[in-house]
């Protein structure tokens, strides 16, 4: 006998939910109590289980559609059984779907300045970026500005905040380069192959067969900093668990809009924003310990640790985070991470943090006890976000949960004050 699977009432005030993912397809065998789809509301994400076993005869509501509680979602019955008529197929139009962003049509005009030959694509790009083509050095025939030239110009221009005079723009850094490269946009190919680094003499503690890997300067500097930090600050870690459902929902709802505004929305900006809220509420955490007293910093500069793989890690800083919206934070975080990986960070980017966040969950870690980034007094470690079964209102719900740990300097904070701070972060995230 066919049974229906309906959209559950997931909360007291929840009237509708979105079919976010079917876990089974039509024709699959299902067991009673086996989860067959995931539904989302703005408060919670949960799995819906089969009330009876059998075969999933028909899926009535497609992924992405939002339907009212009680709406039939699927029919389970015996394999081969006919689906009852009027099972309530939900037409696609009644659901909400997120529309794909419209691309703006780009006008193709003559553009450019008179005189030099300007090809149609160059004119188009020039118009798009409001560029005076005569400012660009052309490598094409007769000094013509080619498509490659203008794209390279756009690339460098986009890294500048405003148009700076040549003596305020940095050079390549090599004080001299081959004469052939004077004015050339692409460096001349090198002529010698890279040589293998030589091994140094082994230390006296070496065992037979050991190989010595020289330390890079970044490794050395990490080593020094970590030892110093542990020596200077008494480290204590307190760990909280946070329900990320609302953040998830917010992210889902907003990530497309953010993409349009040029910022890929990851979870990091949420943690930064929540930290900023907590740092505003508890300014003594946005400080540095000195013998003369606790130096409370005016601005909130959040360092976000970025892994450089085998090479180590670096902590670029989102400066003035207290004045940034979620969009601003998203942009800043993405820019810093990209430049960190491309090794384009400047001294300004890595000096002056007042608080640090490290996302150790990226590699699967659940919780950890990171080392304080001196001269901060706290560091927030964010673990892996995982769906877990949790008890809410004496019912088991499935929520995306994360462990966040604050490692703090016990010279400045105590257990209670440390916990209040993290509780504020938790509260901010859970009430997004």
């Amino acid at each position, binding site marked *: 006998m066919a049974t229906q699977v309906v959209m559950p009432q997931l909360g007291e005030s929840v009237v509708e939910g979105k079919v976010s993912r079917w876990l089974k397809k039509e024709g699959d065998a299902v067991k009673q109590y086996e989860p067959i789809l995931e539904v989302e509301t703005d408060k919670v994400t949960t799995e819906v289980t089969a009330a009876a076993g059998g075969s999933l005869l028909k899926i009535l509501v497609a992924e992405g559609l939002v339907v009212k509680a009680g709406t039939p979602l699927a029919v389970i019955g015996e394999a081969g059984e006919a689906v009852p008529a009027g099972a309530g197929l939900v037409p696609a139009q009644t659901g909400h779907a997120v529309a794909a962003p419209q691309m703006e049509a780009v006008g193709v005009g003559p553009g450019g300045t008179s005189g030099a030959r300007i090809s149609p694509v160059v004119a188009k790009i020039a118009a798009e970026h409001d560029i005076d083509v005569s400012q660009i*050095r052309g490598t094409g025939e007769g000094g013509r500005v080619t498509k490659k030239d203008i794209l390279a110009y756009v690339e460098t221009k986009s890294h500048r905040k405003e148009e700076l005079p040549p003596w305020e723009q*940095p050079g390549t*850094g090599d004080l001299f380069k081959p004469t052939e490269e004077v004015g050339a946009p692409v460096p001349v190919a090198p002529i010698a192959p890279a040589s293998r680094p030589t091994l140094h003499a082994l230390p006296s503690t070496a065992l037979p067969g050991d190989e010595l890997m020289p330390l890079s300067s970044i490794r050395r500097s990490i080593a020094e900093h970590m030892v110093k930090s542990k020596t200077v600050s008494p480290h204590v870690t307190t760990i909280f668990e946070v329900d990320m459902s609302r953040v998830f929902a917010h992210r889902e709802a907003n990530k497309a809009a953010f993409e349009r505004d040029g910022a890929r929305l990851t979870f990091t900006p949420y943690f930064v924003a929540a930290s900023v809220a907590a740092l505003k509420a508890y300014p003594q955490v946005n400080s540095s310990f000195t013998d003369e007293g606790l130096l409370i910093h005016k601005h909130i500069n959040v360092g976000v640790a970025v892994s450089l793989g085998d090479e180590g890690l670096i902590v670029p800083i989102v400066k003035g985070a207290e004045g940034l919206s979620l969009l601003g934070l998203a942009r800043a975080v993405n820019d810093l991470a990209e430049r960190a990986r491309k090794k384009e960070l400047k001294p*300004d980017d890595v000096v002056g943090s007042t608080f640090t966040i490290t996302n150790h969950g990226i590699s699967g870690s659940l919780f950890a006890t990171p080392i304080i980034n001196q001269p901060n007094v706290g560091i927030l470690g964010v673990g892996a976000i995982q769906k877990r079964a949790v008890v809410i209102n004496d019912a088991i719900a499935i929520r995306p949960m994360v462990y966040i740990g604050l490692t703090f300097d016990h010279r400045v904070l105590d257990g209670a004050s440390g916990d209040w701070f993290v509780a504020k972060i938790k509260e901010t995230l859970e009430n997004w």
Partner: protein
Amino acid sequence: MLQARERIGDMLTKTTVDIPSELTPERLLEMYYKMLLSRRLDERMWVLHRQGKIAFHISGLGQEGAQVGAAFALKPGFDFIHPYYRDMALVLSLGVTPRELMLAVYGKKGEPSSGARQMPAHYGYRKLNIVSGSSPVATQAPQAAGIAFGELYKRKVGLVAAEAELPVTLTCLGEGSTSQGDFHEALTWAGVYKLPLIVMVENNLYAISVPINKQSAVTDVSERACAYGVTGVSADGNDFIASYIAAKAAVDRARSGGGTTLLEAKTYRPVPHSSDDDDRSYRTREEVEEWKKKDPILRAKELLMEEGLLSEKLSQEYDERVAAEVDDANRFAEEQPDPEVEWGMGPVYA
């Protein structure tokens, strides 16, 4: 005997100086014009490099105050000068022309310093008594001492009448060069022989990327003077009048037998070391922006306007004249041919 040190003007304490009477309005405006001309020529050379038209440029931007002050204290064509590569404003004030400087950056035929054999900014003009310099820094200091020694020698042995006016020798270098042995040995001779010499250190706080606190344990270069028994003076190098006063005192001292002055012109280098340096890797934009507020030309303009010597109208006129000179020099140099190959072959021997 420990020499007392002097401080003429101070940017940090905002100490300014009175305008000496010999600096008439005409002279002051001439000094201003030369600073402005140097600045705009310099800026044009940066632009030319970014356009790929010249291979190399090393700038004196920001140091015009110290250099013009010193130049106007000297007798061009009589005194000797052994400058360094940032001394564009200095040599312009002594009689070198914008066209000649442009020939150097383009490396064109007819370039007077070296026939375009040397990189630009390696100034050498025999008729102006500007000695040809090289790239290894500080080598000019003991040679300048040698010239000063030679002039004293000529009078001691009667090659020149003892009462004939004594040319002084000015040599300039950066604070980084004061670490070289050449600097030390020059000052050793200067102290022992009381040479008619001015060693002007244009302390712009950076030797490429190395800041002064890694270069020297003493804050003021002039502090080192007492080690050699010469006079030490620190002047506000971004105040063209303070720089003039300090240089004039040093010139007078040298000419009258009072010996050598170690003149430290305190200034700043707001631009990268040279055309391909990336200064963002060793200092913050904030620092540079702070120093730009103390720019010598900005301050000179403010002062001259306060004194009623420079009006907006005149200032604009100067801007236009300078722009015309720069354009003329640029166009001229670009039109010149490259030197023929034979110019590379000699002259090797006199």
